[in-house]
Structure formats: C-alpha cells, structure tokens
C-alpha cells in the first residue's frame, strides 16, 4: 500500500484521483477504465445520451495549447455526465496579462470547479497543477508537451479491445514520429501494462527517441519489416509544428518510405486494424485509400474517446465513503 500512497494519481484507497500518466497505474485499474467506458459506449444509441452521475459538479477545461477536437470531446464527455463545463483558453486569457499559473488555478477553484482538464505545451504541467490543486480537486492530463496523453492512449486501448478482445496475443506497430509524440509514449506504456506480446516502433532514426528500446519496444526502420504479421497498426501524425530541425528530407519522401498504403498493409495480418489519433495528414502518413478503407477504425476512435473520457472523469470524481452504499 505504501507505493500507492506515493502515487499522486491515487487516493488512500488506491482509486483514481488524478489521471496524469499511464505510468504507475496497474493493469487492473486500466481494465476498470475500459470496463467503465464500455457502459458509457452504449449511450449514443439512446434518445437521451446523458446520465446524471455528475449533476451539479463543475469541470473546467484549462487549455494552454489549442486543440479543438480534444477540448470538444472532453466537453461532451463532461456534459454527458451532466456536469457543468467552463472553458478557459489560457493562451488568449489571463496569463497573457501577467497572471501566474497558480493564481489562475486559485481563481478557478474559487468558482468551485472540482476538476481541471489540462492541456499544456510543457511536459509536467498537469502534474504541477495536480500537486498544487486543493483537496477534492482532480486533474486530468489532456496532453502535456512530449510527455503524456493518457486519455488518448486509453481510447486507443478501448478501440483495440473492441476489435481484438484479448490484448495478450497482439503485436502492435506504432509508425512515424515517435520522438515528438506524447500519444506514442502513453500508448507504449498502456500496451505493455495490458500485456500485449510485442510493441514495435517504426520510423526513421531521426524520429525515434534514442532511448526507445528502454521503453520495452522493438525498433524497426523499415516499414515492411515493421508491419509484418501485426494485428494493429497505429499511425502517428507527422508533428510538423514541433520539428525544429531538418529531421526529414521532404513530406513526399517520408510518404515513400513510411506512408501507409493498401499495398504495404498486405504484410500485416489479414484482420489487422489501422488507427490514427488525428488530425491526419492525408498523403503524408497514410493514403486516403487506407484512411477510408475497411480496416480503418479512425472515426470509431473519436466516438470511443467520449466514452473513455467519461469513464476517467467519473472515476476521478468519486470520493470513497465505505460507510454508505446501501440502496
């Protein structure tokens, strides 16, 4: 139990309080997130797509970095839990007027917000906010620098489980710009925690982190070799805006070497699925024929993202009281 207490993400009972990174979370907890998301995934089929679980609670989206899609899915997830949502785009707000991060935090806490969904370009920002948050306030990391994007990883795990069932026999290839990808780091941790057979990272050496092998993955520089017999192909976005050096000759050449086409996909298993966290650069990471093809589950990832975020939010917003519960 001592180690649980040291993990800022867990409360005294070992339950999720913050969701900052996959690191340090055990398989049972990740499975519980997926099981809970399963219950929420059925909601879109109903006339009323909300549940009253978080009625009267306030959730704040604190986005220091623009991301319409992620913010929207978090907002929708909160609304489907019947919470009230505040949106702060800090890049255009108070900090540009000189207010410190902690002052901004205290101000929003004073509005009785009980959860912050934080996106920031600096690695560790969500962790910093969680360390300084008032008791009873939960923090969810919606992407911090190159560090982590745990809800994206969990929605990817949910999508994989929906299609493949058991994680154990799976071989998964993560292709592209792993170096700049917080999504890839979280995916690798989640896949290994859930016990897949093999995680591969595929890309040019300039786009793979030098410490890649320490992450428990096999490294491939040739796409055909990397895709051979895999069950799942995860394509990463070429993070053009993050590249500060000449890491690539050109987008065309990248596509020639690492772009996914129907032809190249043939070496993967017949029932392999193709995923992409979005937004996708068609003709750079992937040909449209694959993105729109029968093996693509990219749009399902978006739908499942709402259910997974609902699961994480509802699990973090609980305060255990073992004395109650009789109905």
């Amino acid at each position: 139990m001592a180690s649980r207490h040291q993990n800022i993400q867990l409360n005294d009972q070992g339950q999720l309080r913050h969701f900052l990174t996959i690191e340090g979370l055990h398989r049972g907890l990740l499975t519980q997130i997926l099981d809970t998301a399963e219950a929420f995934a059925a909601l879109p089929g109903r006339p009323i797509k909300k549940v009253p679980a978080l009625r009267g609670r306030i959730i704040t989206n604190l986005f220091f970095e623009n991301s319409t899609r992620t913010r929207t899915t978090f907002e929708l997830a909160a609304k489907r839990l019947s919470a009230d949502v505040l949106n702060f785009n800090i890049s255009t707000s108070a900090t540009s007027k000189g207010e410190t991060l902690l002052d901004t935090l205290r101000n929003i806490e004073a509005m009785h917000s009980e959860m912050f969904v934080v996106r920031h370009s600096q690695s560790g920002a969500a962790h910093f906010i969680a360390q300084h948050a008032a008791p009873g306030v939960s923090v969810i990391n919606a992407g911090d620098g190159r560090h982590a994007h745990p809800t994206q990883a969990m929605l990817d795990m949910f999508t994989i489980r929906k299609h493949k069932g058991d994680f154990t026999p799976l071989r998964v290839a993560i292709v592209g710009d792993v170096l700049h990808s917080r999504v890839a780091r979280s995916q690798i941790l989640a896949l290994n925690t859930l016990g897949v057979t093999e995680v591969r990272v595929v890309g040019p050496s300039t786009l793979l982190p030098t410490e890649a092998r320490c992450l428990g993955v096999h490294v491939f520089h040739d796409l055909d070799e990397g895709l051979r017999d895999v069950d799942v192909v995860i394509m990463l976005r070429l993070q053009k805006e993050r590249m500060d050096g000449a890491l690539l000759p050109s987008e065309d050449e990248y596509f020639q070497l690492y772009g996914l086409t129907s032809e190249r996909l043939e070496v993967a298993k017949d029932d392999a699925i193709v995923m992409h966290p979005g937004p996708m650069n068609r003709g750079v990471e992937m040909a449209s024929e694959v993105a729109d093809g029968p093996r693509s589950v990219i749009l399902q990832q978006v739908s499942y993202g709402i259910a997974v975020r609902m699961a994480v939010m509802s699990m973090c917003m609980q305060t255990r009281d073992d004395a109650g519960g009789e109905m």
Partner: protein
Amino acid sequence: MSELRTFMNHNAIIDLIDGMAHVLCSRLADHHIENPAIIGIHTGGAWVAKHLHNTLGIQDPLGLLDINFYRDDFTRIGVNPEVKPSSIDFDIEGRNIILVDDVLQTGRTIRAAMNEIFDYGRPASITLVTLIERSGRQLPIQPDVIGLRPPLQEDEHIALSGPEELSLNIGRKDN
C-alpha cells in the same frame, strides 16, 4: 457482513418465481396490459427477470439496466468496478414495461432505474416485480408483484447470489 446463512435454495427460488409469473399474468390481464416488455436490474434482478422472461414467453429481448450512473449517492460511492452496459434492444416509447429487481428495500434503486428508463423513452406503464420485499423504505415506491416478504431484523441483510445456482442468503451487518 458476518455469518451468512442460506435462506432459500435454487429450486425453492425457481418455484417462487414461477408463482410470481402466475400472479403477474393475472395482474396484467386485470389491468389490460398487453404486449409487455421486461427489464431486469443488474445483477440479481436480471437473473430473476431472465426466468420470468422465459416463463412468460416474451418475444422482445430481455432488457438489462445498470443503474450505477443514476444512483443518488454516486459521487459518494463512486463507480462500481463491475459496472455493466445497460442494454435495451426494443423501443421503450409507449410500451408496457415489467421492471424486475431482486430485493426492494429503500426504493432508491427503483427510483434510479425509472429515471434511466425514461432516458430511453416514455413508457405507457411500469409494473414493478421484486423477488423479495423487505422493510426499510425511504421513498414512496411499492411493488406490484412480490415473491416473498421475509421477516428480517433491521441489521439483517438479504442478497441473491447466482446466476447458475440461485441462492438467497441472510447475513448480519457488521457495525
């Protein structure tokens, strides 16, 4: 909970449910309730509902409801690690619904279940069937058909276990 004793075994429970099916049929006829659909509440209610669903020969698939996210104490108790998806594969709108649970005590589960049902549509009616009715009501909710009303002490707890071999067990709550 300490010392658990079996109150009723599988065969006795099945006999009880058969008797409930009989009473339920009469009630539906008396109230001119036609073409009902049946919904069981996870987990024990679903087991009882499954038997009633078979016995009554209802065409629509059995509906299953997990009321975890509708509980009035959700933020205190939190997510049940064994939460299951609700699945209702028929149109609730305008239907006569038979709602089934294993034990009716406070009435809060039934309130939560009715709230969830209304998020699927507006039913014509809801008939409440519970295997056990016991003391401890906190809301004005009463069953239409019950299996049994066992005399229980306030600190006694009754629960249905299953699903293959059903068993009703009574224990005493630890203080």
